[in-house]
């Protein structure tokens, strides 16, 4: 049997059924009645003690949603979603948490299994950390409620606001009103509109002018309850000259039913500000027959509103049955810069349709897209990207490189670039390659003592190195492991 064939078979055998995070936490939860109606929206809003304006905003979105149809242009195929057969809100029963000790220990255990640094015990006990060690503040979203937010005090001293968005709506209504829905309007698209109506929680970050956020901010999403959609809403604002790096990680327990996930993330940078947004997504991809798994329909968009501002998206996508996701940048300010670095791995029956949009509106705006797609099993992996320069966007520049790697002969990789330049001074470059993992390369590695699986992991990690380098250190290590796990099943 040929080396590649062996690898393919091995990958097929062990991959998706060994989903490492497939455990369920048994806790009582507080749910909205099944189905979606104005009452559901009111229920969620009431649960969150929201002001009237917020409820109105949601209802408007809900009414709009009723008039819309699900988009069908992506290269993904899934059975029709019954939106009335889902729960739109689920929260752990115990709430109003003052400190971590009050958090349900079952929930903390879940996070421990996931390896998240939720406990700030060291900090509280005054343990002195070595100079220069970086810390991460975590806002953990367990189903629909942010369970605990760490490092609040230190952030507060720096003037950074980092809290669940439901709290921000109550405590900083002026900021939320000013920015919410200004990057992804409630009318934007079917899934974003749905999110606007029923979003349950998410993170809110505001970094005031001139402040460099003293630590990496992180949120961890986890879908636990059966048949609930997770509709997070994240809003991050970097005011003039501010900088923040935000990490998002996702896991979901193993399920038979498909679960809907439709998040919205909005980023705003003012003059000279920068946001770096990194995602590692390893949601349950479904089993080896393609049953179960998360449907991930996400709208992520950043608005470089100010001059000389910068937004950088880095994503490592290894999970979900369906991924429909295009983190984008609107380069409105002059000299603003957008970046998109992506690793998308599909295995088993996974379908990925992901990419980015770089919309050049301001003068001398630049953007860079590095996309690495890896397809194995019988999966389909599509890069879909739009690069466009407005009439007034003189001197706009883009560089795009899309590389695809195929493992085996039953998967597919597709590249669908849309490029539009409406002024003659725009300079756009596009490079694309597709390659198969070579038998000779694998044999070379194996002859030097690496197992077949280690060899695949090594070659793939080499293939995605340009993107891995963009991730913050802690995430890069996690991502590297994840890549090996999702392709080899070499679970510890």
């Amino acid at each position: 049997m040929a080396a590649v064939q062996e690898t393919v078979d091995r990958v097929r055998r062990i991959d998706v059924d060994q989903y490492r995070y497939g455990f369920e936490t048994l806790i009582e939860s507080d749910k909205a009645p099944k189905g979606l109606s104005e009452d559901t929206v009111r229920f969620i809003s009431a649960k969150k003690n929201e002001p009237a304006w917020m409820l109105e905003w949601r209802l408007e979105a809900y009414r709009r949603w009723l008039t819309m149809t699900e988009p069908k242009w992506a290269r993904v195929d899934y059975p029709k979603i019954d939106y009335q057969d889902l729960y739109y809100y689920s929260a752990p029963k115990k709430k109003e948490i003052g400190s971590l000790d009050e958090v349900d220990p079952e929930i903390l255990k879940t996070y421990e299994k996931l390896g998240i640094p939720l406990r700030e015990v060291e900090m509280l006990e005054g343990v002195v950390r070595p100079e220069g060690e970086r810390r991460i503040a975590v806002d953990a979203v367990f189903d629909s409620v942010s369970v605990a937010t760490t490092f609040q005090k230190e952030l507060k001293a720096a003037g950074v606001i980092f809290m669940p968005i439901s709290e921000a709506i109550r405590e900083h209504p002026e900021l939320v009103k000013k920015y919410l829905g200004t990057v992804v309007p409630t009318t934007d698209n079917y899934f974003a509109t749905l999110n606007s109506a029923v979003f349950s929680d998410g993170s809110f970050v505001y970094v005031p002018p001139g402040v460099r956020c003293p630590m990496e901010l992180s949120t961890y999403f986890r879908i636990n309850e059966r048949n609930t959609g997770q509709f997070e809403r994240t809003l991050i604002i970097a005011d003039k000259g501010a900088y923040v790096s935000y990490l998002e990680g996702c896991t979901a327990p193993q399920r038979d039913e498909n679960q809907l996930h439709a998040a919205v993330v909005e980023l705003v940078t003012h003059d000279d500000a920068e946001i770096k947004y990194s995602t590692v997504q390893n949601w349950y991809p479904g089993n080896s027959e393609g049953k179960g798994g998360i449907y991930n329909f996400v709208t992520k968009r950043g608005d470089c509103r100010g001059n000389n501002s910068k937004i950088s998206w880095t994503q490592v996508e290894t999970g979900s049955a369906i991924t429909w996701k295009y983190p984008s940048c609107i380069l409105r300010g002059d000299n603003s810069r957008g970046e998109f670095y992506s690793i998308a791995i599909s295995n088993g029956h996974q379908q990925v349709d992901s990419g980015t949009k770089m919309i050049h509106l301001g003068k001398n705006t630049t953007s860079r897209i590095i996309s690495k797609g890896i397809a194995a099993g019988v999966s389909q992996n599509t890069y879909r990207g739009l690069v466009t320069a407005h009439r007034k966007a003189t001197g706009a520049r883009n560089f795009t490189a899309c590389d695809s790697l195929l493992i085996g002969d039953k998967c597919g990789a597709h590249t669908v670039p849309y490029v539009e330049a409406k002024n003659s001074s725009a300079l756009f470059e596009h490079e694309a390659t597709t390659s198969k993992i070579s038998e000779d390369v694998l044999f070379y590695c194996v002859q030097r003592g690496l197992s077949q699986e280690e060899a695949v992991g090594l070659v793939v990690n080499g293939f995605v190195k340009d993107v891995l380098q963009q991730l913050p250190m802690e995430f890069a290590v996690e991502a590297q492991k994840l890549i090996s796990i999702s392709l080899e099943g070499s679970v510890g």
Partner: protein
Amino acid sequence: MSLLEVKNLQVRVEEREILHGLSLTVNPGEVHAIMGPNGSGKSTLSHVIAGKPGYQVTGGEILFKGEDLLEMAPDVRAAKGVFLAFQYPVEIPGVATMNFLRTALNAQRKARGESEYSTPDFLKKVREVAASLNIPQDMLRRGVNVGFSGGEKKRNEILQMALFQPSLCILDEMDSGLDIDALRVAADGVNALRSPERAMVVITHYQRLLNYIVPDVVHVMSKGRVVKSGGKELALELEASGYAQFEDAA
């Protein structure tokens, strides 16, 4: 005990038989040269010993240190001490040579139940060996064989040989694509590794290489068999008279 015993080996690729009952015995400390024209099965032999997929062994056996080599996965053979220096070493973009060396060495050590090298120990060892082969530090930071010249690729193979300290080294057409200076550097590297515990099988078309790596035994292969064996003078004889005389013998 012999290090390597190939007994009556028959090998097919798809429907075509390439080796028709080849036998070869190599003892520790010996250097064997295998010569022969294109298509005589020299490279097939090296691939089958190393365990490259795509070959079907239909008869015979290969014993390595008395164990059935054909039963072992290729990475197990590597850990047991079988090393193949490739004729055309592959490029692995994005994987730094240093990282590759370390991953491979530790994988072998782990498979043998030995402790993995610590970073400082490993770096020290690599630097020593690299210096002796004229391999600049910069080359170790680059992707495996990416943008390497022909000579650099071969030196990288010998670097690995020196690091892994295998008991059997198979050198497949080491001289191909090398100019005379590069060949000398590579051959010096190989000669430095000659030892009473280690055996080498040098596969080559030309006698030239054997001026630098002097063999104890020379085998002539033709049409999938060893048709003649002798001392190092056999290589000179071949150089003078060519392979044609053996075509009939096979």
